[in-house]
C-alpha cells in the first residue's frame, strides 16, 4: 500500500479573499492518500471536510497549495484536455441523492453522461450495454435504465450516483457523506456495496462523514479536522484506541453507542481550544508521534505525547 496516489500539500481554501468576511474553510492541510485505501475524514459541520473534498477534485480553485494526483498537480492552469484526464480518474459521490441527480434526465442518460463526454463508447449499443452492466454492478437492474430519478428511493438513488461515478472507470472516488441522508437499514447496504466495489476494482476512497462509527468501519486511516485544520491522522483502529489530540478525544467520547450499559456510565469530555496554551510564535504543526500517527501539536506537546505513547 506504499504507493501514493494523491498528495495534498498545504492545501488552502479561503472564501471572500480580500474582503472583511474572509473565511478560511481549509487552512493549510497536508496528507497523502495511498492507492487502494480508504481515508476517512471526520469533523463537525463547518470544519472544512467537504470543502477539502471539493478542492481536491477541483470543484473549487484552491487558494494555495497543491493536490498531486499521481505526481501531477490538479490545480493551476490546465487545458480542457488535461482537465478531462483528471476528471476521468477522479469522481465524486454526493451527500444528497435527491439533489444530485438531474430530475429531467433518465437514469441511462445520467449514468452515460460521463461515457459520452469521454467518448468511451463507440456505438449506441455499446453505450447501453455499459449502462446495464453498471446498473447491475450497483445492485439495480436493466429495467431501471429508462426511468427517472423520482421513481427511486433514497438508497436506490445513491446507487445510481455510485453507478454514475463508476461509469468512467475512475481510480479515485471522493464520497461526501454518501450515507448521511439514508435510513439505517439502507446505510449498511450502500456501505457494503462501496466496500465490495473497492475490492473488485481496486478503488481508492476519500470518505467524508460525521458518523464516526461508520467511518471507523469503512476506513483504513482516519483524519480528524477541526476549524479548517487537520488535527490528527492515524490508522482507524489506532485512532479509536489511542486518540491523542484532545479534540479527537472529545469527539470519540460523544459517539452514542447502541449499548445501554456503557451509555449509563459514559463520561463525556469536552474540548476547549485553550488547553494547549500555545505561546506566541510557537510552531504548531503535524508531527509524527509514532509511525503513521500524526498529531497537530507544538514541540512541547510532541515531547509529552511521545513519552505517553511509550507507556
Amino acid at each position, binding site marked *: 500500500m506504499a504507493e501514493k496516489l494523491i498528495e495534498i500539500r498545504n492545501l488552502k481554501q479561503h472564501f471572500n479573499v480580500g474582503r472583511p468576511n474572509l473565511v478560511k474553510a481549509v487552512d493549510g492541510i497536508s496528507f497523502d492518500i495511498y492507492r487502494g485505501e480508504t481515508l476517512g475524514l471526520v469533523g*463537525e459541520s463547518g470544519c472544512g471536510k467537504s470543502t477539502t473534498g471539493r478542492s481536491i477534485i477541483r470543484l473549487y480553485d484552491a487558494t494555495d497549495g497543491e493536490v498531486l494526483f499521481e505526481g501531477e498537480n490538479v490545480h493551476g492552469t490546465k487545458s480542457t484536455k488535461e482537465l478531462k484526464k483528471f476528471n476521468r480518474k477522479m469522481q465524486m459521490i454526493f451527500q444528497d441523492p435527491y439533489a444530485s441527480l438531474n430530475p429531467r434526465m433518465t437514469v441511462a442518460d445520467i449514468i452515460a453522461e460521463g461515457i459520452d463526454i469521454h467518448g468511451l463508447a463507440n456505438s449506441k449499443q455499446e453505450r447501453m450495454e455499459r449502462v446495464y452492466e453498471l446498473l447491475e454492478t450497483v445492485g439495480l437492474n436493466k429495467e431501471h435504465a429508462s426511468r427517472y430519478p423520482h421513481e427511486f428511493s*433514497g438508497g436506490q438513488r445513491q446507487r445510481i450516483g455510485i453507478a454514475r461515478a463508476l461509469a468512467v472507470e475512475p481510480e479515485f472516488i471522493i464520497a461526501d457523506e454518501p450515507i448521511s441522508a439514508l435510513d439505517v437499514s439502507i446505510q449498511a*447496504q450502500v456501505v457494503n456495496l462501496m466496500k465490495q466495489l473497492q475490492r473488485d476494482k481496486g478503488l481508492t476512497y476519500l470518505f467524508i462523514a460525521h458518523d*464516526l*462509527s461508520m467511518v471507523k468501519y*469503512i476506513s483504513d486511516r482516519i483524519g480528524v479536522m477541526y476549524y479548517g485544520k487537520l488535527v490528527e491522522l492515524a490508522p482507524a483502529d489506532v485512532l479509536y484506541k489511542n486518540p491523542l489530540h484532545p479534540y479527537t478525544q472529545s469527539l470519540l467520547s460523544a*459517539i*452514542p*453507542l*447502541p449499548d445501554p450499559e456503557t451509555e449509563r456510565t459514559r463520561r463525556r469530555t469536552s474540548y476547549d481550544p485553550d488547553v494547549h496554551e500555545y505561546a506566541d510564535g510557537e510552531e504548531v504543526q503535524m508531527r509524527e508521534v509514532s509511525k503513521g500517527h500524526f498529531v497537530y501539536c507544538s514541540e512541547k506537546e510532541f515531547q509529552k505525547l511521545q513519552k505517553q505513547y511509550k507507556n
Partner: protein
Amino acid sequence: MEKILEVKDLEVSFQTYGGEVKAVRGVSFDLYKGETLAIVGESGSGKSVTTQTIMKLIPMPPGKIANGQILFNGDDIVPKTEKQMEKIRGKEISMIFQDPMTSLNPTMRIGRQIMEVLIKHQNMSTSSATERAVELLRLVGIPMPEKRIKQYPHEFSGGMRQRAMIAIALAASPKLLIADEPTTALDVTIQAQILELMKDLQSKMDTSIIFITHDLGVVANVADRVAVMYGGQIVETGTVDEIFYDPRHPYTWGLLASMPSVDNDGGAELTAIPGTPPDLTNPPKGDAFAPRNQYAMAIDFEEEPPMFQISETHFAKTWLLHPDAPKVEPPAVVQKRIRKLSSTFDKPVLVKEEK
C-alpha cells in the same frame, strides 16, 4: 406509576392520488409519568405520523384517524375540536422538531417566540414573560440570554437554535414532550450536549418524553423503554435493556446488526437488511417485514403475526415466538449482545386481543 398517555389501536391513513396510504396500522402503547419512550424505525414506518396524531398536527383531510383512542390523562384527544386542541398544544403537550432551521419563525425575535407561549397559555404580562424567557434560555444553556432574546433565529447556530426550540417547548411546563429526531441535524458533540440537557430538564420537571429517532446509540442513551416500528405497526416493545440485550423480532435484529460498533474491527461485512420498506398503499398480506426477513416462514406471508409477551414489559410481534416455530439463531453480531434477563418469562405468552 401514573399513566399519562394511552394510545389504543390507533389507525391513521392518508388519501392520496395513488390511493389510501395506511401510515399507522393499529398502534397501542402507554406512557408513564417521567419516563422516556423511544420510538425507532426507518422513514415511512409511521413513527412521525403516530406522534403528530397525538398532537393532532396531521392535516385532515387528506389525513384521517380511522380508528383508535388517544387518552391523555384519561381524556380522549381524538374527538377534540381544533379550538380545544389549541389549549392542549404547547401547554400540556409540546413538540421539538427535527430541523431547527425551518421550525423557528425567521421574522420573529427568539424572545418573542418564547413569550408567545407564555402569554397565550399562562396569561402572563409582557414584562413577566420577558423575564421568564430569559430564565428559560439560561436554563437551556444559552449564554447571555438577555442579549440573545432580542436576536433573530439566523443569528443562532444550529445547536443554539435547537436549544431555543427546547426552551419554547418547555415554556409552559408541558406534561408530555414529543421530540421528533431532535438531534439528527446536529453534530455528535452538540448532540451529546442536547441529550444531556433534555435528561437534566426531565429530572427537574418530571416531564414524560416520546423520543423519535433512528439512531440506536441515541436510544441507548436516553430511553427507559423502546418501541420499534415497522410498516405502520409496533413490532417490538420493551425496556431499553430488553431491546438491546434480548431482542426477539428479526427486524430489531436487523437494525442492531446493521450498525457498525466501534469495537468492530471492520473485517466482517455489515449485515444489511435487504430490500426496501413496504409500500403502505397496499400493505402486504401477512407480516409486513416478511419479504425482507431471512427468517420468514410460510405463515409470515399468509397471516399477520400476533403479539407475544416475553416478560412483564417486553412484547414482540413475530411468529418466531410461537411454540410451533422452529428455533432460529439471530445473526452473530446480535448473539454477542444477548444475555439472560431475570424478568423474562419461561415461555413467550400469546397476547389475547381485547374485545
